């Protein structure tokens, strides 16, 4: 346990001091991207990992909040009002999305969410009077909370880091709460949960709302980061990418989506500068993960580590007078 706390402490120090040792603004920006995409992936993980509900339309919800932020700002509202309004719009969209899609589970859920995502994409793409169509919406300025201008890359990174840590804490609390346990129960044994008196649908609905909140928060960070939003953000490929972050890192784990987000963002931004065929590489990585580490990178590495550890212990215990204290 103390080993784990030590590791978390090291990770925290690394994240806080990152702008001081990272080579250049470009990489600080990459780190910001990893963090807000990680919030998005954590939000999807609530459903895909802990709820067993694989949503292939989350980019549509992400886009609704992002467009709402951009549209409010374009109407001339201030940053605070715009952000709050956009979060509310995102939550309402999520509630409707949940009402429609929770009629089904399994492949049916995948298909309904995919259709909902495509509808939202179609609206963003074609409802030109509202969304500007392919030209998208641009956001002119970044906010200045408590007098810190977020236009600076380092300040933006720290703001993202604070939101990220809050989201991760919220997720940790959620997973350990009775609601989180009940959600995992509905994933593994829905019929038994019903028999035990749980309202399975309501538990899934609350999980959807929590997932929607994290998605909306990451969308606000995204829209201020890129200062631009276009229909491409809502496309099926975007939904697929987030889902890939969750599954490749390890669905149903706290750290998995963060590792997955780092993997996808690094391949998309950094590696793509060196290798022209990065999309091919990304696809190959995903296929390889499913074949070699079907449970995802984080649980897979933990398993390999434990196996190696046990082998060492076994070797130690077969030695004459070896350690018998550690069974």
């Amino acid at each position: 346990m103390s080993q784990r706390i030590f590791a978390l402490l090291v990770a925290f120090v690394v994240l806080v001091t990152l702008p001081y040792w990272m080579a250049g603004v470009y990489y600080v920006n990459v780190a910001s991207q990893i963090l807000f995409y990680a919030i998005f992936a954590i939000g999807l993980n609530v459903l895909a990992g802990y709820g067993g509900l694989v949503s292939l339309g989350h980019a549509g919800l992400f886009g609704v909040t992002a467009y709402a932020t951009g549209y409010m700002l374009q109407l001339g509202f201030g940053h605070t009002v715009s952000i709050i309004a956009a979060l509310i719009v995102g939550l309402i969209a999520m509630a409707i999305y949940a009402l429609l899609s929770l009629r089904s589970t399994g492949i049916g859920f995948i298909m309904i969410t995919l259709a909902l995502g495509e509808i939202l994409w179609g609206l963003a793409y074609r409802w030109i009077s509202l969304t500007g169509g392919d030209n998208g919406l641009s956001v002119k300025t970044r906010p200045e909370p408590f007098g810190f201008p977020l236009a600076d890359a380092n300040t933006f990174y720290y703001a993202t880091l604070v939101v990220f840590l809050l989201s991760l804490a919220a997720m940790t609390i959620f997973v350990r709460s009775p609601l989180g346990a009940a959600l995992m129960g509905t994933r593994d044994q829905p019929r038994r949960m019903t028999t035990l008196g749980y309202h399975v649908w309501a538990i899934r609905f609350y999980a959807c709302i929590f997932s929607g909140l994290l998605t909306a928060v990451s969308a606000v960070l995204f829209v201020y980061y890129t200062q631009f939003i276009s229909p491409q953000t809502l496309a099926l490929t975007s939904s697929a990418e987030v889902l890939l972050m969750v599954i490749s890192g390890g669905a149903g784990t706290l750290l998995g989506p963060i590792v997955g987000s780092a993997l996808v963002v690094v391949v998309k931004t950094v590696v793509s500068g060196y290798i022209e065929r990065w999309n091919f590489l990304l696809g190959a990585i995903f296929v390889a993960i499913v074949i070699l580490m079907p449970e995802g990178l984080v649980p897979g590495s933990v398993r390999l580590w434990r196996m190696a550890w046990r082998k060492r212990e076994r070797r130690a215990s077969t030695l004459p007078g070896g350690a018998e204290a550690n069974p």
Partner: protein
Amino acid sequence: MTFWLVLAVNSITFGGLLFLLSAGFSLIFGLMRIPNLTHGSLFMLGAYIGATFVIGMLGVKLNFWLAALLATLAVAMMGALAERLLLRRLPGDQMAQVLVTLGLSFMAADFCLMVWGGDPLSVNTPSTLTGFARFGALVFPNYRLAIIVIAVIVAIALWLLLERTRLGAMIRAGVDDPDMARVVGIRVSQLFTIVFALGAGLAAFAGIIGGPILSVYPGLDQDMLPLALVVVILGGTGSLLGSFVGSIIVGFIYNFGQALLPELAYFVLFLPMLLVLLLRPQGLFGRHVP
């Protein structure tokens, strides 16, 4: 009046193409319960491979139909390989299936971009079908009418295969109740490979046949996959009749939507699918709720 009739014929043509694409998708979905998100890529691969031989990019210039046959066989082989080597290892694990099929579609899209470049390829209509058919004042390109005929022939052939042969009976048994089919001695896992190859081949055939109308371009896979999904959800999984009716409906909605309500074209396209999912989750002709 002429406008409406031409639009209707175009809708039926497009519906025919969609049928070729989605019949295999529906069978794979119905039999194996796999959301095969590579289906759009198989369509695009078929289109590119066929176009290569029709245009003569490798120095070999083939007859259109010979090229179509070659592309169909090549992609059917790829489908069988993907099923044998990858999807077979992941029975019942939908998340892993989604991940693998999406990963493969990323790879296929990038592969096509690498080999054939970003410019669209235009495929000439086969020389025997370049003319026009006249019905009074109406003029229709022969090729579009030929696609309708081909789709109907394939539909009848598939129907005969499924309803009148031993293999078809085994596939139907597998769709209805895979466990029971295994118990009575049907090798369901072998059927999986056959059906996957058949579905992949049909998708590739649709791709090359559609080449002269749609042309072949990067992103074709992303355009076609959602349409196949809509068809299958509308018609019901594992149902041939469902795919056929669903394809014609989607063909009409797509063409009329683009012409009449361009701002809401996609909204109109996905709305019926949503209604079916909410009101009749098994689809118009399906027997199972997916």
